[in-house]
């Protein structure tokens, strides 16, 4: 399987939006990193460069895979987007906010624009499916009536109707990940960040999860997914950003996981 490699060539958002002009896209960026560098101190003088001079732009409604081996900077990239980490150098904009200068009391507002899906689901074990999803809306102080209307809607979207009263331990891994996606999506975020969402799932279940993420992407949400799963990346044919040692070594629309061979 051989792919055309167009490294550092700015490709348009995949699929339906491919024919838009650059000018249109400028306005529609939801994620933009400019010459961003992030290092971690590992000792008094030692440091590890997690991201080195990285520039990435993600448009509204795009579906992006971020691939690369462990330690390539994927996790740091995701943490920077939610402002769990601050960059050392460079600029980063997410959902119209400049994160380098964002005041810490405004961080909750940023995170309301972002839904987060974890590899290990991170569901609260003592809450039912409905309660787990409603929890994300409750902590934002949404009115009860709106929550009662919205939660069944989202559970329906992720295909969990009939499981509303089940507890996480009564569900399969795939079902738990659907709950986690419902929770990430219940507040209608502009961006869905998925950190290895299929990492704990078998291939068949993973396909179902990817169909769901695709459906959510079609509602207009931007999806950024960090993954190791070669089959999934290859079958989806979406934009692929490959990181290696903290650098972007490939940014390709309709890409596959790796080079042939």
């Amino acid at each position, binding site marked *: 399987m051989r792919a055309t490699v167009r490294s550092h060539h700015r490709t348009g958002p995949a699929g339906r939006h491919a024919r838009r002009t650059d000018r249109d896209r400028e306005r529609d960026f939801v994620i933009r990193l400019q010459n961003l560098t992030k290092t971690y101190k590992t000792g008094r003088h030692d440091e590890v460069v997690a991201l080195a001079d990285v520039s990435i732009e993600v448009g509204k409604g795009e579906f992006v895979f971020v691939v690369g081996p462990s330690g390539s900077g994927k996790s740091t990239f995701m943490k920077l987007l*939610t*402002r*769990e980490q601050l960059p050392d150098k460079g600029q980063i904009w997410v959902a119209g906010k400049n994160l380098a200068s964002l005041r*810490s*009391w405004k*961080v*909750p*507002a*940023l*995170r*309301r*624009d*972002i839904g*987060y899906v974890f590899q290990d689901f*991170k569901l*609260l074990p003592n809450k039912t499916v409905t309660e787990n999803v409603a*929890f*994300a809306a*409750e*902590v*934002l*102080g*949404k*009115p*009860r009536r709106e*929550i009662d209307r919205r939660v069944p809607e989202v559970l329906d979207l992720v295909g969990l109707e009939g499981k509303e009263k089940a507890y996480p331990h009564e569900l399969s891994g795939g079902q738990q990940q659907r709950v986690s996606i419902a*929770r990430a999506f219940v*507040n209608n975020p502009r961006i869905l960040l998925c950190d290895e969402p299929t990492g704990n799932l078998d291939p068949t279940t993973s396909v179902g999860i990817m169909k769901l993420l695709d459906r959510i992407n079609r509602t207009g949400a931007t999806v950024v997914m960090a993954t190791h799963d070669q089959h999934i990346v290859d079958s989806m044919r979406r934009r692929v950003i490959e990181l290696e040692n903290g650098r972007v070594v490939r940014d390709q629309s309709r890409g596959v996981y790796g080079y042939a061979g």
Partner: protein
Amino acid sequence: MSARWRYILAEAFNGLRRNLMMTVAVVLSVTVSLTLLGASLLLSDQVDLATDDWVGKVEVSIFLCDGSTCPAITADQEEQLREELEAEPVVAEVFYESKEDAYERFTELFKDQPNLVESVDPDILPASFRVRLHDPALFGVIAEQFSAYPGVEEIVDQRQVLDQFLSFTDVVRNGALIVAIIQLVAAGVLIANTIRLAAFARREQTSIMKLVGAGNWYIRLPFVLEGVFAGLLGALASWGLLYVSVPRVAGNLAREVELMPFIGATEVLLIGPWLIAAGVGIAAFSSIVALRRFLDI
């Protein structure tokens, strides 16, 4: 109540229940420290009560004979004594207290002990001249000059009596205050540690809340309330403890120590708000400090 507040309160109470042993330890430690704090406050009240304005103002009491132990003072002698006292350069002020005045002041002072008041015949309290000096140390001058006067029964240096009493109560009160403060710091550290453990136990939930975009205070308030509630319980317990014990102790002392007024239940009730403010304050402060680093975004 909105869903938001219901969540915050439910979380706070769940936290207390889950950590029952720790909650008990916090409540007990707050109780002990605030009981000591309350005791030292009450001791101050006791001192104020025992040294009322009159006693505080007067350094020398010159008791006058009423005929029971020495020949009663005549009106002329009394007049002469007053004139000579007022002529003394060391004397600042002279008050006359008649037998009736003395009885009135006595009944006022001991209004909480009606038995004592009943047992005292209005007639046995002597009349006196009460003298304030420019310099309290010059008591000797007055004692020397007037003790042999006809009609003078006894001259008492009130300042000396008072100073002994005050220095004793000061030591006790300061001791109680110091122990109370040390205990209060210990209680604060215990609360901080408890809240930190609670936050650690629920870190999964808080990390989800953070990523969903819950506000800082929405995440913290359940933990702070958990600490504050334990502090409040401790404060109420110490208040109750003092309310039950202090009037009883004071009652027993009043029977032992004659001629001194003692505080009662009213004074204990009045310090309650201070105890609650101290308990809630220290709990809120330590909880917030404990969460400051742990739950930062």
